[in-house]
């Protein structure tokens, strides 16, 4: 069976800057695939490129970009806009900027259905009220008549999720959906997403910088660095046996209650993300890597490190395990 979303060798350039440098990933039906990385690593650009929403000046190339078995590489704006919001839905980080402040929640939600399906107004309103209830909003009738500024951040994000579900999408792309929210609300929203996914069998591509979110919600993780996926694995495997030095560094940076004692220094990655000039070759992490050596200048093999586990690194398999022993 083919994957719901199958991206192979995706490249995005803005003028002379390569933002995404040959990314491959798949999202199966009912699977949550997390793209994790720090700012500027190209994770958001990847999601925008998949949806055909790159800013002007962005150039996309791909070996394959297939959605539900259809290659959508050559889709024009009209075909993409028919897909977006219908079979492929999106949620962004800041719900206030993605909602139109001049229209009520109800009119924005029903527009999705009326536009894609031509559903009559009354029926669309019923559907919107039903979905607001589904995402845990009490008094949906009241909320439908309100404007976005009258809602709290958590409520707005719930509205965004409900709106994304209006047309029963197969794929949901969520770019940092809980980053702007308080921790308690973040947990509520993620729980809601996980529940809805189980119920509807959605495929989710979730973009985040938060390893805590990844650990709790992802089935599969791809770690991005400087426009490449440097490591990809099933979630439990990635956290139990990280193989890329960047992944390992990232994991030691996060303060975990009970793991690192107060006042003991956290792990950190020296230096910062390099600018990648066109024609760059070799490992982009080599200048910050504690294990760098001569081979890191050349082409880096993508090697298997276990079932479904791939690493973009010259270190031999099992290297870290031998170091620890």
């Amino acid at each position, binding site marked *: 069976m083919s994957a719901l979303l199958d991206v192979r060798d995706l490249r995005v350039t803005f003028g002379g800057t390569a933002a995404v440098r040959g990314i491959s990933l798949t999202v199966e039906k009912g699977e949550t695939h997390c793209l994790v990385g720090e700012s500027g690593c190209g994770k958001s650009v990847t999601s925008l490129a998949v949806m055909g929403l790159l800013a002007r000046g962005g150039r996309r190339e791909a070996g394959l970009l297939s959605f539900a078995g259809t290659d959508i590489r050559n889709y024009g704006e009209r075909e993409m806009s028919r897909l977006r919001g219908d079979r492929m839905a999106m949620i962004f980080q800041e719900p206030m900027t993605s909602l139109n402040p001049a229209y009520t929640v109800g009119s924005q939600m029903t527009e999705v259905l009326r536009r894609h399906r031509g559903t009559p107004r009354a029926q669309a309103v019923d559907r919107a009220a039903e979905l607001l209830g589904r995402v845990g909003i009490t008094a949906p009738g009241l909320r439908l008549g309100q404007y976005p500024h009258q809602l709290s951040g958590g409520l707005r994000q719930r509205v965004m999720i409900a709106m994304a579900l209006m047309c029963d999408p197969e794929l949901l792309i969520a770019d940092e959906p809980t980053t702007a929210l308080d921790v308690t609300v973040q947990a509520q929203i993620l729980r809601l997403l996980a529940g809805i996914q189980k119920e509807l069998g959605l495929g989710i591509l979730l973009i985040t910088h938060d390893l805590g979110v990844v*650990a709790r919600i992802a089935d599969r993780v791809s770690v991005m660095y400087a426009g490449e996926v440097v490591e990809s694995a099933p979630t439990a495997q990635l956290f*139990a046996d990280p193989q890329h030095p960047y992944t390992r560094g990232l994991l030691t*940076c*996060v303060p975990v209650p009970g793991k690192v004692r*107060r006042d003991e220094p956290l792990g950190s990655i020296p230096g910062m993300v390099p600018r990648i000039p066109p024609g760059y070759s070799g490992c982009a992490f080599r200048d910050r890597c504690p294990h760098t050596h001569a081979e890191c200048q050349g082409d880096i093999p993508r090697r298997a490190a276990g079932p479904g586990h791939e690493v973009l690194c010259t270190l031999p398999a099992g290297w870290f395990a031998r170091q620890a022993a």
Partner: protein
Amino acid sequence: MSAVPAIEVRGLRRIFNVRQGLFAPPRQVVAVDDVSFAVPAGSVLGVVGESGCGKSTLARMILGLLPPSAGDVLVDGQRLSDMDRRARARLIQPVFQDPFSSLNPRRRVRDIVAMPLMAQGNISRTEMDRRVEEALSRVGLSVEQGSRFPSQLSGGQRQRVAIARALVLRPRIVVCDEPTSALDVSVQAQILNLLAELRRELGLTYLFISHNLAVVEHVASEVAVMYLGRIVETNESEALFADPRHPYTRALLASVLTPEPGLGVPDVGLGDTMPDPANVPSGCRFHPRCPLAFERCPIEAPKRTPYGAGFVECHLAETAAAN
């Protein structure tokens, strides 16, 4: 070591008059309500709470940037309101969340760091240069980076500039308001390590405001949990994280997503009513969201029940202490 706390706050309150419309009478919003605590010299008080709980208002009052409506702030035993701006700046300095908007984009780094010295006046050019260089090297920036503009630096480097600016007057106390929230995790770790190192070497006292409990657990020796303007629970860090008594503290702790796969997303047990500072609930202000609320909670405000070195404001803790 002196017994005078570095920061002492007594019955601090701040009321904002919020206009609701052109002709509507203004409404009063109590952003900080009867907050008292003392931070011993050399320790770190972490203040946690959701957005709108009043933690930044509290920070601004302690920095002297906002006059309290009632109550006192004592810094090093002296009332903040009796000090002039220069004396205050020598004692207590801020580091804010966003290093993109808290640095003047049209000034070079070294001029930004020199600004507090210049404001104090009475300092020679050579002495000023020496102090700026010392502050920059303390935070790990080179002299060469000192001649750049903020736009030429990364987020982590900018936050280092903000820390250097806070340290240049050699203050005793630094108020950090979400100092790492805008940064990537790897940079956050660098900045947290730097702050810890500076505290040890310079004997600083921090008021550390954050919404990230994992970060607070890592840096703070004492923690205060704020909810709608009040401290609902406070204690030594170890005690509070090991044995949280307030249902709100428990919910906050439960919602921390540690990078441990297989645990799933926790049910924090809070309803979908959000706290509204303009409309504080009667009785215990947490009762509309509290999973353990009972008849007494909406009627009567809970008293402070002492436990360990701190206290908790909850009827359940009151009942438990009475038995």
